[in-house]
């Protein structure tokens, strides 16, 4: 008898707790949607509105600001007439150089540091580790001097090249390489394989997750970079997308909100879609970046 009532009140309490939990989750979700999702919705829906419609929804406030009611493609058309296509292409070229270069340069370096026992390994590792402490944005002025000295200023190559020897990329791959048992190397060596073959056919096929992570995070960094491309590129036809957006809001003149929002949305939405599909890689990769 007592056991039964005890059970029933326990069940009732469980239900109460469950509804309290649902309420708490609902409140949290509402706050997060309002703070993090609505600004994006506003950006995207405003991309499909002209200046007048954007301001009409704001004063007085109406929920229609989040919905493109009288959708127009005029902003998108204007953006492509102003050359956003070229800016997107430039950013893509830079990102491809940077991702490809990072892999090409970091993977062999990580192999040497994890799989070959050579003299001076400690010194070289220290030399690399030290640069991990250098904040990239503080080096922009002398970096511009170096790039001009090489005759590379105002080229897309110069936007990507300085970041290819990525310490973050090296560390990420090094960690993945270390998890591969050394016995695999030894077995391959008995079969007569040299370092190049071990690298290509034993190590690389076993670190696909790390390589995917590195590619995605490097692409993100490259695509989102701002200060360095702003500094190194002067020709408008070589401008990358982030600089193009920044210049459309530049202080001084009244920006066209619809067009600026449109540019921001075009530059951001594809990346967000990529993020939604490959969230695990992005979150793990970015969490392991630490400083850079």
């Amino acid at each position: 008898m007592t056991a039964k009532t005890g059970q029933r009140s326990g069940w009732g309490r469980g239900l109460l707790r469950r509804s309290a939990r649902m309420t708490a989750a609902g409140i949290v979700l509402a706050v997060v949607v309002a703070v993090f999702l609505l600004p994006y919705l506003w950006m995207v829906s405003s991309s499909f509105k002209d200046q007048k419609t954007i301001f009409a929804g704001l004063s007085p406030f109406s929920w229609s600001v989040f919905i493109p009611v009288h959708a127009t493609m005029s902003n998108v058309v204007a953006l492509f007439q102003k050359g956003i296509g070229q800016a997107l292409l430039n950013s893509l070229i830079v990102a491809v150089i940077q991702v490809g270069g990072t892999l090409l340069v970091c993977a062999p370096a990580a192999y040497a540091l994890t799989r070959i026992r050579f003299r001076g390994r400690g010194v070289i590792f220290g030399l690399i580790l030290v640069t991990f402490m250098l904040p990239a944005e503080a080096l922009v002025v002398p970096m511009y001097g170096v790039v001009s000295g090489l005759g590379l200023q105002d080229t897309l190559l110069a936007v990507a090249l300085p970041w290819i020897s990525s310490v973050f990329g090296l560390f990420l791959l090094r960690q993945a390489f270390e998890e591969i048992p050394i016995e695999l190397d030894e077995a391959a060596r008995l079969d007569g394989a040299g370092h190049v073959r071990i690298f290509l056919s034993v190590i690389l096929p076993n670190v696909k997750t790390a390589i995917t992570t590195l590619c995605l995070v490097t692409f993100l960094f490259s695509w989102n970079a701002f200060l360095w491309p702003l500094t190194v590129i002067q020709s408008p036809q070589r401008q990358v997308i982030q600089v193009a957006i920044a210049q459309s809001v530049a202080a001084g003149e009244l920006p066209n909100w619809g067009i600026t929002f449109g540019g921001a949305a075009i530059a951001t939405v594809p990346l967000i879609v990529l993020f939604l599909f490959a969230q695990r890689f992005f979150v793990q990769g970015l969490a392991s970046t630490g400083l850079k």
Partner: protein
Amino acid sequence: MPSGRAPAGVQPGGGSAKLPPPGRARRRWRRETLPALGFLTPFLVLLLIFQYLPLAVMARYSLYDYSLFNPSQAKFVGAQNFIQVFTDPATLQSLLITFIFILGVVALVVPISFIVAVYLNGKLPARALVRTMIFLPVVTSSVVVATLWTFLLNQTGLINSLLQAVHLPPAGFLTDKHQALATIVVMTVWQQLGLASVLFLAGLQSVPRELYEAAEVDGAGVLRRTVSITIPLISRTTLFIVVVMTVFALQAFAPAYIMTGGAPEGTTNLIIYQIYQTAFQLQQPGYASAMSIVVLLFAIVISLIQMRLLRTRWNY
């Protein structure tokens, strides 16, 4: 190949015993050092050109009065640029503003992201959705974040429109010298919260479950368990997040460039923007390099702290 040839040419205990050190050294050179160099050279060459060379160039620039248009007319000025860093009111203000900015970002990001991480580590529904949404700004460029917030905060923007809808007076935000810096602190917190929360979440998940179970048996409540178990055990994660956020805030540039231009009255003139303006608008890369060195030294101190932390990260 070498291992196959050795038994045929060399008698066991014969000729090879005469010169073991040079032979071994040569073999070591051929089998280890040479391939290692081959694998490392591309990385090291780029590292020397784009990390070490700029350091040397920066050190040299900082001692000269120098113009990017006229590099041949550089004039040696010794420590003059460094004296200027610590006497020029605009630069001093910029350093101070950046310091306040960093403090503000860290002081807000750490507690808020901790609470978010505890939520994400709990059992409430829709956690994955919350994590995805707060991570959106982390994968958005700082340019787009600054652009979006410029319009959100505008006199006629979304936030003032909402304030008006609930009959509150509109706020100046970026145009008010008492609000501008606080506003970009809040924006940066919004931008970085997702990353800090995920880092905290990893820290929380590394705390052994048994500790909580034992504490629960002893009758410790949620608050007690948080204060006595969670916070001390994840203190390394906390410090790590402080360092990451500090270095991120130190390098902030887009807010000043896009949102305010350093205004009003220099209250948002972050140091990287001040460096950029000095080098490329005022054409004083020598002076800008001296500022960069000060920023660099600050970052190195912070990073040394981080490295100590990372090295001892897994020993509780």
